[in-house]
C-alpha cells in the first residue's frame, strides 16, 4: 500500500501539486487521470522518487521514501517496476537481455535461472517469440509488453505505468490494460497508472484519482464515475456529444 499526504510541488513560481492526499491499495489498479498539465506526471514522478516534493509524505507500506537513507532507497527500488510512456527499453540489448537486466544487476540467481525467469516473464506477456529481437524491431505495443516483462522480472511489490497506452491503437491498448490489471491481481501488487485513456478508466479503474489544476478534484472507481456530478470531471470525460450519449445509454441500461 502506498500513502501520500499533502504533497506540494513547485517549479519556480508555478505550484504544480497543491496538497494531494491519497491511498493506493495493493491488488488494485489505481488510475491517475486529468487533463494535460494537471500534474499527473509530476505526481507519479514524486511517488516514484524521480522528483522530491517540497512538502508532504510518501510512504510505501509505512516506509517514508523521502527521508529514507540512500542505500535503503536504492534497495527499495528493487521492489519497484516502472513502465514508461515510450517503453524506455535499452537499445543496445535484445528483448531477452532487457528483461534479464534487473536480474543481472540485483539477483543472486545463476545464469540459467536468470534466463528461465526472463523467459517466463516474456511468456507472461506473450512475447517469447521476440526474445532475440532488438527493441527497434518491435511495434509500439510489443515494446510496451517487453517493458512490462522487464518491470515484473524481479517480482515487484509496486508497479507504476506512465501513460501506457499513448500511441497505441484501441485494441492494443486493451491488451496492455488487461495485462497490467491481470498482473496486479496475480501478484497482489500496488499499481498506479497515469492515463487519459477513457477505455482504461472504464476497464481497469479499480480506484481513480482525478486531478485538476494540481488538486485532487474527485476520487472513486469506474462504477461511480458514470454517476458523478463533478462538473470538471464530466467535462473531461464526456467532452463529445457521442460520449455523452454513451453515458446516458449506460445509465438507462442500469
Amino acid at each position, binding site marked *: 500500500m502506498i500513502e501520500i499526504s499533502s504533497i506540494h510541488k513547485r517549479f519556480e513560481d508555478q505550484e504544480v501539486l497543491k496538497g494531494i492526499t491519497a491511498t493506493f491499495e495493493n491488488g488494485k489498479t489505481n488510475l491517475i487521470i486529468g487533463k494535460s498539465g494537471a500534474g499527473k506526471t509530476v505526481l507519479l514522478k514524486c511517488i516514484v*522518487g524521480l522528483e522530491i516534493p517540497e512538502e508532504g509524505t510518501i510512504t510505501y507500506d509505512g516506509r517514508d521514501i523521502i527521508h529514507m537513507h540512500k542505500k535503503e532507497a536504492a534497495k527499495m*527500488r528493487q521492489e*519497484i517496476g*516502472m513502465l514508461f510512456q515510450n517503453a524506455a527499453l*535499452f537499445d543496445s540489448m535484445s528483448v531477452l537481455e532487457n528483461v534479464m537486466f534487473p536480474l543481472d*544487476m540485483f539477483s543472486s540467481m545463476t545464469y540459467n535461472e536468470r534466463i528461465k525467469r526472463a523467459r517466463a516473464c516474456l511468456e507472461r506477456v506473450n512475447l517469447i517469440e521476440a526474445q532475440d529481437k532488438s527493441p527497434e524491431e518491435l511495434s509500439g505495443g510489443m515494446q510496451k509488453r517487453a517493458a512490462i516483462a522487464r518491470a515484473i522480472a524481479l517480482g515487484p511489490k509496486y508497479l507504476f505505468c506512465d501513460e501506457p497506452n499513448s500511441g497505441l491503437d484501441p485494441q492494443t491498448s486493451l491488451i496492455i490494460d488487461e495485462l497490467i490489471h491481470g498482473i496486479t491481481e496475480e501478484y497482489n501488487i500496488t499499481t498506479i497508472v497515469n492515463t487519459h485513456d477513457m477505455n482504461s478508466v472504464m476497464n481497469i479503474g479499480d480506484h481513480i484519482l482525478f486531478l485538476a489544476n494540481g488538486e485532487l478534484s474527485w476520487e472513486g472507481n469506474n462504477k461511480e464515475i458514470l454517476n458523478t456530478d463533478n462538473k470538471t470531471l464530466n467535462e473531461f470525460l464526456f467532452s463529445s456529444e457521442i460520449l455523452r450519449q454513451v453515458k446516458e445509454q449506460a445509465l438507462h441500461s442500469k
Partner: protein
Amino acid sequence: MFLFDSVKTFGSYLILMKRVITPPQRWRIFFRQMMHEVYQLGVNSIPIVLLISFFIGAVICIQMKLNIESPWMPKFVVGYATREILLLEFSSSIMCLILAGKVGSNITSEIGTMRVTQQIDALEIMGVNSANFLILPKISALMAIIPILVVFSMAAGVGGAFAIGKFTGIMTAQDLIVGLQYEFNQWYIWCSIIKAIAFAFIITSVASFYGYNVKGGSIEVGKASTNAVVSCSALILFSDMVLTQLLMQ
C-alpha cells in the same frame, strides 16, 4: 554571468564525477561493459588513428625537408625533427583532439539519446547508479586503450615519413634512421602516454557530462554533442600546456 555559469557547470561536473567514481554495483557487468567500450571507443578508432598519423608523418617529413634544408644543417635533422614532433605533440595532443571529435560526439549523443528516451530514468528507477553504470566503463576503457593508440600513432607517423622518403626520394632511409635515433630520449614516449591518458579522461568524462545533462529532444542532443567537442578540445589544449610544463621540466 559567464564566470558564474562556468563555475556552476564545473560544480555540476564534479558532482557527476563523484557519482561516477564509485565501485561498480556488479563487477562482472562492469568488465563486460568495459570490454564493449574498449572495442567501441578504442579498436574502432585504430583505422582513423593509423590513417591520419601515417599522412601527418609524411607531411611533416616533407615540410621539414623543404623548410630546414641547408648546407649548414646535417641531413639527419629532418628525421630528428619529424620524430620530436610526432613523439612530443602529434601522437598525444593532436591525436586526442581528433579523438575528441570522433569519440566525444559519439559518447554525448549515445548518453544524450538515452536521457531523452528515458532509458536513464529507467535505470534510476531500478536502483542502478546510472552515472556509474554508463560513464565509468567508458572512462576506464579509453584510459586503458589510449597508450596502445599512442604507440600505433607514433609507429604509423614514422612509417609515413619512411614511405615518403622512399617513394619520392627526397631523402635516404639511412639519413632518416640516423635522425630518428639521434639523441633519443625514452621519457618522451612516456610523456606522450601520460598526457594521452589525461586527455582520455577529459574526452570521456566531459562528453558524458554533456550527454547526461541533456534536456529536451534530438536538437538538444545535437547541440550537446557540439558543445562537448568544443569543450573537450579547449580543455585538452589547456591541460596540454600544463602537463607539458610539468612533465618536461
